[in-house]
């Protein structure tokens, strides 16, 4: 309610940052309150439990059971490994395909076709090949994550402005210099779009595999809680997975901010004394 009081009078003015934050927290608090009341008084506890019960389940058993913590640690390791492999191979393949016409014209359509395959249908095969351990999960995360990185690396290299290439050429840049100073920097924003998409898909791949192979790890516990009609720890576990995803995304964002030139904090526009930059006398 205080958020509304903070909002500026004019309907068209930009809301203040504080008003935005307050409104957001008010909505979250309102939703939590609603779920708490609904879960406590109206819902079937076999399917839904109030927020307080979920928070309690988060502390116990989720964050206090060493088996669950171990399973979460394993999941984080699998996501990290799958993501790392996706980045290494995705960018290598992407650069290889994007840097010459022959592979781009011959191989790229095949990659796009593979990208379109709903990989879930191959899950049983992956488990047959890689077994029930982390290898299958890492592979599945990797096979999901690699495609957006390839696709965005290739498109980033393709979108090199012809004008920049011509300018660099006219200034006498060597082939290596053009790659280093024109093609790569031009590719970076698109590459990071790929990295963020890949993060989401890697996570999806690993979790899907976890759920399918439910003899251990997170999948075992989600099945355990679901089948024993105990939704509170299930929600809490889902929340932890979401937090892991957010943490990985945060890392990507930090890397992006550091590595994307032109997005870095820029100096304020200031006019030095005795200098009239925008124009001489008109």
């Amino acid at each position: 309610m205080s958020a509304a009081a903070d909002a500026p009078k004019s309907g068209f003015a930009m809301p203040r940052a504080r008003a935005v934050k307050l409104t957001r927290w008010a909505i979250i608090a309102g939703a939590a309150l609603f779920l708490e009341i609904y879960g406590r008084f109206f819902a079937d506890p076999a399917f839904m439990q109030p927020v307080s019960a979920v928070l309690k389940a988060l502390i116990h058993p989720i964050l206090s059971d060493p088996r669950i913590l171990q399973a979460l640690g394993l999941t984080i390791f699998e996501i990290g490994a799958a993501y790392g492999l996706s980045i290494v191979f995705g960018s290598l393949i992407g650069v290889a395909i994007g840097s010459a016409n022959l592979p781009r014209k011959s191989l790229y359509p095949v990659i796009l076709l593979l990208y379109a395959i709903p990989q879930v249908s191959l899950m049983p095969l992956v488990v047959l090949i890689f077994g029930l351990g982390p290898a299958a999960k890492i592979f599945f995360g990797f096979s999901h994550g690699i495609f957006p990185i390839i696709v965005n690396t290739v498109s980033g290299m393709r979108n090199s402005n012809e004008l920049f290439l011509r300018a660099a050429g006219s200034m006498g840049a060597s082939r290596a210099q053009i790659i280093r100073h024109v093609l790569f920097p031009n590719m970076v924003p698109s590459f990071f779009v790929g990295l963020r998409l890949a993060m989401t898909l890697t996570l999806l791949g690993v979790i899907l595999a976890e759920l399918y192979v439910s003899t251990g790890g997170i999948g075992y516990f989600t099945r355990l809680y679901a089948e024993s009609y105990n939704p509170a720890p299930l929600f809490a576990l889902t929340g932890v997975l979401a937090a892991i995803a957010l943490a990985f995304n945060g890392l990507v964002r930090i890397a992006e901010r550091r590595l994307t030139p032109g997005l870095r904090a820029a100096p304020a526009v200031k006019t030095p004394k005795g200098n009239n930059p925008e124009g001489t006398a008109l």
Partner: protein
Amino acid sequence: MTDVSQSPSAAAAPAITIRGVTQRFGDAGSSQSVLALDNVSLEVARGEFVCLLGPSGCGKSTLLNIVGGLIRPSQGEVTVSGRRVDGAPRPDEIAFVFQESTLFPWYTVIENFRIALKFQRVPKAEWDDRAMAALRAVGMAGFSGHYPNQLSVGMRQRVNMARGICVKTGILLMDEPFAALDEQTRMVLGEDLSILLAETGKTIVFVTHSLAEAVFLSDRIVVMTARPGSIKTIIDVGEPHPRSPDFMLEPRFGELRNELYALLRDEIRKTMASQRDPAAARGGA
């Protein structure tokens, strides 16, 4: 870097010689084939400012790209400072300023200068002094740490022009550098350019659509015909650089402008007619 102007024989020789240049895009005889330039010959003296003026599509930019070594001509040859240009850029002799700013958006203004000087193999110790001198010359020294997209279009093109001037080439090829700017900014940048040129003594070939710009800046104006482009006539302006804006108020300025317009009008009509009926135009040619 050879300073050719030191030797008396080279000083007398033209900076750029274009001999019988013909440019055809696509295979001769095919229906897609376009004859862009037809037997163009021109000499540009050292330190001269020459404008290429003509209807759009007449091959002005193509000619500029051929001189700069970005395109290899179908026939004929271009020599720059006595050496033949054969479809390979000559960064030690020739700098380009393109219509749009070619400042790399991922580098700051000063980094853009450094990278240009690096590409041109200028010793590292000179980079910043040269860059700042060029930026001061166009009144942009306070913006060396900015990224191009933090500058207005006019400021960006000002920096772009400064980058073309700061490199150590004797020849500057400018392809409609002010086309994207509003008229007031163009005039101001034109004045700046006239002053800078008088100071640096560079040879400039400048492509433009603007009659006023051509008269204000040029020593000679090369008027080209509609496609296939050839030289219709060459007009001498004969006014020393640097030129003050007062030149635009002189009767001679208006007369030259009108003369250019009369010359171009026919060519523009021809272009429009051929666009309306391409088959007839080809048959007639």
